[in-house]
C-alpha cells in the first residue's frame, strides 16, 4: 500500500539566541510512515519531543533536518521544505491540526470559528455555517451555545470546538496534539468515535497523547519515543500494550 506520509531523519534543534545561542535538541532522526486510513499514536514521556514532531510536519516549527514526504492530491511534497504557499494551501484543503488548547478570537462565535475552518472559495458563508452547525451538533455542543464565543465554554466543550474546527474541511491528514488532555470521560468517548469515523472515511491520523485509555483501542500502530536516546520504536497496538504490561 502506498504511504500517505513518510517521515525520515526528522531532527529539531532549537537555537536560543537570547541565551547566548544555546541549543536544545527536541527530537532526532525520527522515522515513521503513515498509510492511508491509518491511525498512528505517538507515545513518550513529557519532553520527549512528541508535539515537536507534529509541529514540524505542520510547519509551525522549522525542522533542522529530515524530510516528510506527503502524497497530496497534486503529487508528493516534502512538507518540511516545500514553499509556504503549498503549506498554506494544504492546510486549507488537506491537512488538519488539533492543538492542545483552543485559541480563538474572543469575539467570534463557536459557529463562526468552525465555519472559518472551511476554505472560503469552496464554501459560501451560509453553507459553511450550516456545515459548522452540523459538526457542533455531532460533537454534542448544546445549540444555545453556538452563538457564544468558545472562550466562555468549559474545557471539554472548548476542546470539542477545537476538534470540530480542525476536521471541518475533512482533512486527509489529521495531526492531533493531546486532543483529549482536558476532557472528561464522556467527551473522550465522543472524540474517540469522531476519530474512528474520520478514519472510516479515509482520513489518516497522527495522535500525540498520554491518554492511553482512549487511544490504545483505536491506534493501528504506535511510535514510542525515548527521552534519553530520542530514538523511536514502531509496532502495533498489541506491541505497546505488551510493553505497558511490564
Amino acid at each position, binding site marked *: 500500500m502506498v504511504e500517505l506520509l513518510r517521515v525520515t531523519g526528522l531532527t529539531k534543534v532549537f537555537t536560543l539566541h537570547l541565551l547566548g545561542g544555546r541549543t536544545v535538541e527536541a527530537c532526532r532522526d525520527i522515522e515513521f510512515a503513515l498509510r492511508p486510513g491509518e491511525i498512528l499514536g505517538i507515545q513518550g514521556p513529557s519532553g520527549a519531543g512528541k508535539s515537536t514532531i507534529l509541529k514540524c510536519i505542520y510547519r509551525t516549527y*522549522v525542522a533542522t533536518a529530515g524530510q516528510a514526504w506527503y502524497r497530496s492530491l497534486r503529487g508528493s511534497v516534502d512538507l518540511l521544505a516545500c514553499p509556504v504557499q503549498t503549506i*498554506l*494551501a494544504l492546510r486549507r484543503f488537506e491537512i488538519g491540526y488539533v492543538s492542545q488548547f483552543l485559541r480563538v478570537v474572543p469575539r467570534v462565535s463557536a459557529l463562526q470559528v468552525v465555519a472559518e475552518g472551511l476554505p472560503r472559495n469552496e464554501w459560501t458563508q451560509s453553507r459553511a455555517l450550516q456545515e459548522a452547525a452540523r459538526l457542533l451538533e455531532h460533537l454534542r455542543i448544546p445549540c444555545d451555545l453556538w452563538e457564544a464565543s468558545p472562550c466562555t465554554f468549559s474545557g471539554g466543550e472548548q476542546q470539542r470546538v477545537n476538534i470540530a474546527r480542525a476536521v471541518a474541511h475533512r482533512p486527509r491528514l489529521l495531526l492531533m496534539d493531546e486532543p483529549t488532555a482536558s476532557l472528561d470521560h464522556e467527551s473522550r468517548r465522543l472524540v474517540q468515535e469522531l476519530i474512528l469515523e474520520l478514519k472510516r472515511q479515509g482520513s489518516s491520523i497522527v495522535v500525540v497523547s498520554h491518554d492511553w485509555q482512549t487511544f490504545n483501542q483505536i491506534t493501528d500502530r504506535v511510535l514510542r519515543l525515548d527521552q534519553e536516546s530520542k530514538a523511536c520504536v514502531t509496532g502495533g497496538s498489541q506491541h505497546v500494550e505488551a510493553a505497558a504490561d511490564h
Partner: protein
Amino acid sequence: MGGIELSGLNIADTFSGLQGNPVPDEPLLRVRGLTRIYGRGCAECVVRTGPEAGSNICPICASIVACAGVSFDLYAGEMMGVVGESGSGKSTLVQCLYFDHTSSAGEAYLKSYRGGAVNMLGSSAQEQRHIRHHLMGMVYQNPHQGLRLDCTAGGNIAEKLLTAGFFHVGRIRERASELLRRTEVPMERMDHLPRHFSGGMQQRVQIAKALANNPPLVFLDEVTTGLDVSVQARVLDLIRHLHRELGLAMLVVSHNLDVIRLLTDYTLVMKSGRVVEAGLTDQILGDPQHPYTQLLVSSLL
C-alpha cells in the same frame, strides 16, 4: 459505541472539489529588491547598514537606508504581515508600493497591471495614479493621510469613484452607503465631516474609501495603532470579516504581533530596513529563527 453519526459528511466529495483549487502559481504582487534611501546615497550605503550594523544610517554619507533589498510574493486573497519596531522600514515599504514615496531601486509587479509583466515602480505618474485608484487601496495609521477631513465621508468615497469615471451622484451615493454599511458607519454620518468622527470611525471610513473600487489588494499601515483597545478589536474584526467576505489580498503593517497573529498567514520581520525573517505567521511566533525575532516574540506580554 455509535453515539456520533457523520452520515452525510462525504470526504470524497470534498476532495474531488480540490482539484479545482490548485495552489496559485502566480502571485498577485511580486516585489524584488525594493530599496528606498533618503539622502544622496553612496556605493557603501546598503553594505554598511542593516541589522548587523545595528543602524540604517550610512556611516559614510549619512544617508538613511529606510528599506533595502525587500523581496516577497503576495498571493491573491492572502493576508501578509510586516512586523518590526518603529524605524524598521515597514511603513516605507508599503508607502513605496502605494507610490507615496518613490523607490530608489527594486521592482514590483502587480498581476492585475499589464498581466504582471511591467515593473510598476518604473511607470509614469499617471499610470501609478491609475494603479492606486483602481488596483489598490490604502488605509493609513493617521486618518489625516487617507481622508480629506473637510470633505464629507461620502465625498471621500466619491473621490475614488469619480476617479474611476463614476459620474452619477445617485449611484455614487448608493455605492458609498453600501460601503459605509459594510464598514459599520451609521448611514446618517455619510454627509458629515470625518473631522468630527471618533478615531475608530475615521478608520472605518478610511477602509470604506480604500475598498471603493473593489481593488484586489489593500495595504493596512498600522491601522489600529492609537485606538482604544475595544475600538481596536472592532476594527480588526471588521478587517477579518471583509477579508473573508471579499477575498482581498492584504498587506498588514504593524509593530503589534497580536495584530499580525490575528490577521495574517504569512509574515515578514523587518529590522533596520531589512527583512530578517519571513515565514508562516504561526512559525514566526512558534519557532522564531532570527535573534531579533526571538527577542520580539519574547517581548510579547
